[in-house]
């Protein structure tokens, strides 16, 4: 872009220099001094000297004075000099041609490049906006997921607490039932032990009474018969 601007400035400078160079000679020939000088040279060549004119015929003097008067006559404020028009027009044409050949395409390319850059910037901005929108959408989606996850965790915690409460309640009930069963078993075992103790006591009393009866009833004859029976039993069983 900068290179294009520099080329355009160089072309304009070249055109302006050409115009100034072309206009300079026409300016120099049209000055009042130069005009007077030319009229004087021309009169001296024609009449030999200015005293000749002054002392000569009145008509020659008037003609010389008219010529000097032409020198001090003012130029046209509207129309330039012909050679100025020619040089200016040529410079304009050259500049126009150069601009048509190089400048305008260069400007057009610069403008196109600028437009492309702006378009690219706009596209980038759109892309960035789209990215930001997508990021926002993703963020919102993640936020929604996080909220959902949080809700799920809270729900699970609530369910877990509920289950734990039920488990504890069930365990407590089971423990109570177990304690009741154990207490009932203990009562039953105590009852059975009491019955067994009572039975043992009764049997001990009964056996003690039986022993006393047996001992009292065992006389010599009964002892003899018991021993004889034992001997016979050993002889039969082991024989």
């Amino acid at each position, binding site marked *: 872009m900068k290179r294009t601007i520099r080329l355009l400035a160089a072309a304009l400078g070249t055109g302006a220099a050409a115009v100034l160079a072309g206009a300079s000679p026409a300016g120099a020939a049209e000055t009042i001094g130069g005009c007077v000088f030319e009229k004087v040279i021309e009169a001296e060549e024609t009449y030999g000297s200015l005293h000749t004119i002054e002392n000569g015929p009145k008509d020659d003097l008037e003609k010389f004075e008219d010529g000097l008067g032409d020198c001090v006559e003012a130029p046209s404020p509207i129309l330039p000099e012909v050679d100025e028009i020619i040089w200016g027009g040529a410079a304009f044409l050259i500049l126009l041609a150069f601009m048509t050949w190089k400048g305008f395409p260069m400007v057009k390319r610069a403008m196109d490049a600028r437009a492309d850059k702006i378009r690219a910037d706009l596209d980038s901005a759109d892309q960035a906006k789209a990215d930001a929108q997508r990021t926002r959408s993703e963020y919102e989606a993640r936020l929604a997921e996080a909220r959902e996850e949080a809700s799920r965790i809270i729900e699970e915690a609530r369910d877990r607490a509920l289950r734990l409460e039920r488990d504890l309640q069930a365990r407590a009930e089971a423990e109570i039932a177990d304690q009741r069963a154990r207490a009932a078993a203990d009562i039953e075992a105590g009852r059975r032990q009491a019955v067994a103790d009572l039975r043992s006591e009764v049997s001990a009393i*009964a056996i003690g009474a*039986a022993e006393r009866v047996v001992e009292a009833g*065992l006389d010599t004859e009964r002892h003899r018969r018991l021993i004889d029976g034992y001997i016979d039993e050993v002889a039969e069983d082991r024989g």
Partner: protein
Amino acid sequence: MADDRVAGYAAAVLAVARAEDDEAGVTDELFRFAQALRASNELRVALTDAAVEPSRRQQIVEDLLGGRARPATAAVVSMVVGAGRGGQLPEIIDAAVDRAAADRNRTVARVRSAVELTPDQRSRLTAALRSATGADIEVRLIIDPSVIGGVITEIGDDVIDGSVRSRLSQMRAGLA
């Protein structure tokens, strides 16, 4: 170690009885004394109390057996008690009795009864046990009132229980 000590004392006891040429009489008296020692806790304590001087313990033995048993029997018991082995005296006597029987190719049958057996009962029981075990049996009778009635025979680890005491125990177990 304890078994070796008991066997050594038993051999010494048996050697004394044989030296007196009265093995059967001495072993029979020793067997009875062993049963009396088992039955009397007071006597067992008197003969095994370490606080009592050995000479005093031997004097107790002399007082108990002097004039009632053979001098060899009293001497053997006094020797064991004086050596401080009164607590093992029943085992020593049992080992001596078993060894004496074994030397005669016999097996000792310890027979418990509440009353004395008649000679006929003793011979019939010996024959029955010989028939049952196939071995030559030497019956050693122990009078034990706790048997109440009937007989209990021990041959080694085998027990043949025909006592009234065991029947009453069975009745007690049945009632319990």
